[in-house]
């Protein structure tokens, strides 16, 4: 059963299409993230689910009910904003109680639920304070408590951690995820931070120009991106322009060669057969920096010259210029030997550590 369902939802402003024919479903208790660069339509999509914006086309269902024309205050969603949007003139407890009050829940019943909600976000001791007396992270936890205390059909979060520093953001990612799982609440989360999307979500919808480019589980999104945009937005990817020369055994693997240097051939293991490649297809070969190794130990190889090395603690990121003049990034565990800057070497990777992507222009 799907808790939230969008069918062919579009939103246009004047002549600009902010959201373009988006269809997706979020199952009960699931955590879905809308991920994309700014202006991709993710916030517009969320605001349409909350009811702050009307879609210009399409239908939105919550719990199977068509809510497209239902006003925002009757949709029973709980929203967390990037700016926290706490009521500055009310105490923390009054902020959390507000939604209950609007539902006619008052007195002891409300007090108990407010206390419970504040306990879930570990802010019981702050109940009597005013929002401005709390830190940013605490304020956002109050906002989270305020959104979940009404037990909404769906929890909506619009870049809730966008204005917090990295350390706090990571703590709150864990806390938001655990609160969501503890309460078994359906959640839709908007972010432009791919790390946040991958670590928190059950499923991620990568959006660009108002469209969903790929909707998948985080690990599949990372290991099997459907196009170069997703591959580059979610993690880093080395891309080489290639042409398919041979396909083996019912799309299980194929041989490709560089379109720039036809004598450079690579093998690719195809994990899923949702796209049938044929000899002569021009496409992109992609592999992740951590799947490439220095030296010629793996089957696919290309010559390269070291351009720059950056240190990241657990790994070093080596930037190279490959034999075709393009750029390559390789992550090498710290401690492993690294050739000096300007030195020539070889990069290699395994057939099952890479993937094929369609060309953007095709």
């Amino acid at each position, binding site marked *: 059963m799907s808790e939230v369902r969008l069918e062919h939802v579009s939103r246009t402003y004047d002549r600009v299409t902010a959201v373009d024919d988006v269809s997706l479903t979020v199952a009960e208790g699931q955590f879905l993230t809308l991920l994309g660069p700014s202006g991709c339509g993710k916030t517009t999509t969320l605001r349409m689910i909350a009811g702050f914006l009307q879609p210009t086309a399409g239908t939105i269902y919550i719990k199977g009910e068509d809510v497209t024309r239902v006003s925002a*205050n009757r949709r029973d969603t709980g929203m967390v904003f990037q700016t926290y*949007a706490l009521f500055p003139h009310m105490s923390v407890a009054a902020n959390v109680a507000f939604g209950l009050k*609007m539902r006619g829940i008052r007195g002891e019943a409300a007090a108990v639920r407010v206390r419970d909600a504040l306990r879930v976000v570990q802010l019981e001791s702050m109940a009597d304070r005013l929002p401005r*007396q709390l830190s940013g992270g605490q304020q956002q936890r109050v906002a989270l408590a*305020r959104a979940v205390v009404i037990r909404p059909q769906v929890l909506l979060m619009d870049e809730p951690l966008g204005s917090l520093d990295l350390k706090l953001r990571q703590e709150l990612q864990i806390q938001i995820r655990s609160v969501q799982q503890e309460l078994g609440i359906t959640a839709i989360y908007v972010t432009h931070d791919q790390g946040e999307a991958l670590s928190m979500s059950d499923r991620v919808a990568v959006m660009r120009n108002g469209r969903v480019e790929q909707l998948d589980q985080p690990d599949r999104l990372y290991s099997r991106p459907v196009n170069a945009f997703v591959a580059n937005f979610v993690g880093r990817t080395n891309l080489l322009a290639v042409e398919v020369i041979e396909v083996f055994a019912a799309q299980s693997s194929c041989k490709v060669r560089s379109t720039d240097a036809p004598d450079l051939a690579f093998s690719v293991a195809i994990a899923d057969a949702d796209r049938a490649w044929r000899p002569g297809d021009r496409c992109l070969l992609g592999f992740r920096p951590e799947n490439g190794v220095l030296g010629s130990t793996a089957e696919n190889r290309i010559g390269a010259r070291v351009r720059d090395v950056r240190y990241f603690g657990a790994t070093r990121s080596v930037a190279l210029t490959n034999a075709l003049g393009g750029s390559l990034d390789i992550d090498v565990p710290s401690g492993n030997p690294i050739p000096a800057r300007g030195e020539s070497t070889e990069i290699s990777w395994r057939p099952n550590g890479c993937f094929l992507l369609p060309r953007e222009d095709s």
Partner: protein
Amino acid sequence: MAQAGVKGSELPIRGPADSGQGASTERSEPLPIRWGVLSLPAVLGLLFAFGLPIALLTANSLFRHAGPGRVAPTVTLDNYVAFLTDPFFLRILLDTFVLGFMVVSICAILGYPVAYFLARTRSRCRGMMIFLVVAPLLVSAVIRNLGWVPLLGTNGFVNWLLLLLGLVDRPVALVNNFVGVVIGTSHAVMPFMILMLMTVIQRINPEIEEAAVNLGASQWQNFWQIVFPLSIPGLLGGYLIVFTITISSFTTPAMLGGNRVLIMSTFISQQVRFVLNYAFGATCAVILMAVAIALTVVAVRQSERRG
């Protein structure tokens, strides 16, 4: 409502006493001396053009009336006693307050929707609309009031409209009386109320309103429980300006009151220009000033408490 918020504030972190602007307390470098030196001309100018006349005025109020246009330099509180014990004079003071509160109320009620709209609109014409709001201030008070006379007269547009709509049976007296003064003054000071409210409403994060609606608040509940309490500093500021301008305004009461409306300003003018009782005129002026200062202090205290 905000009182409730202040209640639980005996906290170790930050009480309302330091006005809640925590971030700005870090920069406490002393201002360079040259700013003090540069303000000297203004300070001296004010002392000469403002402080000195007020001192003379206050002195006059403490002297005895000694025939038309003269005071005897014997210090006495008789003028104040005379004012504060005579119901006729107290009535004038009360009428002045009533005028002030009526004008404030009208400006607040009629100005609020305009202020809210101007604060939230993203229209390209916003600048133009703000100009239109401010426009009455660009017209001389005399011209503005002259414009009201034909509108409010017995055969004026307003009465014509009221008769047409069947709201009244015969023309209502709207000018040369208290009503005319209220209308004319409200018009004149409306821009101040709108601008004060607009600035404060603009600072209310629109997402706060969305949060309220998201939690189930109707537009009505959103307004009374969220927007209105948060805009009280704007109302206080608007009240302060509108009230003090109104109780000290002279041109409009004189022109639209038709010599029949006796409030402090018109009464002071009578005393000084026609009765030539400078001592009593000065007394009334000092009392009016004291009231205005007291109200200012109260309003400023209130808005400081709200941070």
